[in-house]
């Protein structure tokens, strides 16, 4: 009997706008996590910000590449207090966006955690990008805080999938 994989282990579809979404008490029984966000902001533009286990220290680093409507660019951030994933739009009806974040070996306690992410938005805040992240902690990930440099609009959806390994 194959092990079930790509299971939806947590979700939140916003009925009203919200500043952040938190998933806690995540099971440690999978190998990897995939977070899929389809969202927009109530106004303005911004980025998804990911925090693990409520760690507010500068343990987060990233390398990114991105194309906006007018340029391509790359950069690195270290140390940060969040993982940043490009995302820019302000209208859930007109311009929803998709962000996909993979966190490998999230429950392992003998390694720092690596994330791969893709951000996609078109329209007023065009941005397509890819990022690699590190969280300098050997703790198993059991809590994920997702917020933006703005407020998520109603109907934004947040899914967390577990991949068996």
């Amino acid at each position, binding site marked *: 009997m194959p092990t079930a994989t790509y*299971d*939806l282990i947590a979700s939140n579809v916003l009925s009203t706008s919200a500043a952040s979404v938190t998933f806690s008490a995540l099971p440690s029984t999978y190998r990897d996590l995939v977070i*899929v966000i389809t969202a927009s902001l109530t106004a303005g533009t911004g980025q998804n910000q990911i925090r693990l286990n409520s760690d507010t220290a500068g343990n987060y680093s990233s390398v990114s590449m991105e*194309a906006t409507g007018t340029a*391509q660019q790359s950069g690195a951030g270290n140390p940060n207090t969040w993982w940043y994933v490009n995302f820019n739009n302000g209208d859930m009806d007109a311009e*929803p966006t998709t962000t996909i974040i993979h966190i490998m070996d999230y429950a392992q306690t003998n390694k720092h955690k690596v994330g791969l992410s893709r951000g*996609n938005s078109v329209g007023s805040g065009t*941005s*397509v990008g890819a990022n690699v992240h590190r969280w300098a902690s050997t703790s198993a990930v059991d809590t994920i805080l997702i917020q933006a440099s703005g407020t998520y609009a109603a109907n934004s959806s947040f899914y967390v*999938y577990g991949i068996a390994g």
Partner: protein
Amino acid sequence: MAMTLVETITLASATSTITFSNIPQTGKDIMVLTSLRDANTSSGNDVLFSVNGVTTGYVVRTLYGTGSGIGRANAGSSGYMATFSSQSNNLTANTFSNIQFYLSNYAGSRKKSVSIDAVTENNATAAYMTINAGLLNATAAITSLSISMGGPNFLQHSSASLYIIS
């Protein structure tokens, strides 16, 4: 609750369009993985995705690398979601491109946001990697999905698999 293979289409002969019809509405997300080679004799052409037979209202933003440079592309209100990643028939024999097409909330009633990653293979400097953000300015649930080159055929042994994730 899982990732479920709905269908794999493997071409027994050259074909211009690969279509998944009657996509079950029981999932949250859909993912399509392809292995494609086409009859073009020059590289750098687009692979075109469309849904529900809709032929207008797609917007795509692309970041790409060519093996010797990088660039970006903007396509607004076009007839397809195009990714700059054809595996043309002048590239190394027996090599195929790979594309991942991911669409969340496909059965919902809002506009559809898409993430597409694609790579080609070639034993030479020129090969392509693209990441693409797509938007379909239509709200209907996705019940069919087509992949084409806008004319040239996909070659024998090309394949595409559609999964639903629930």
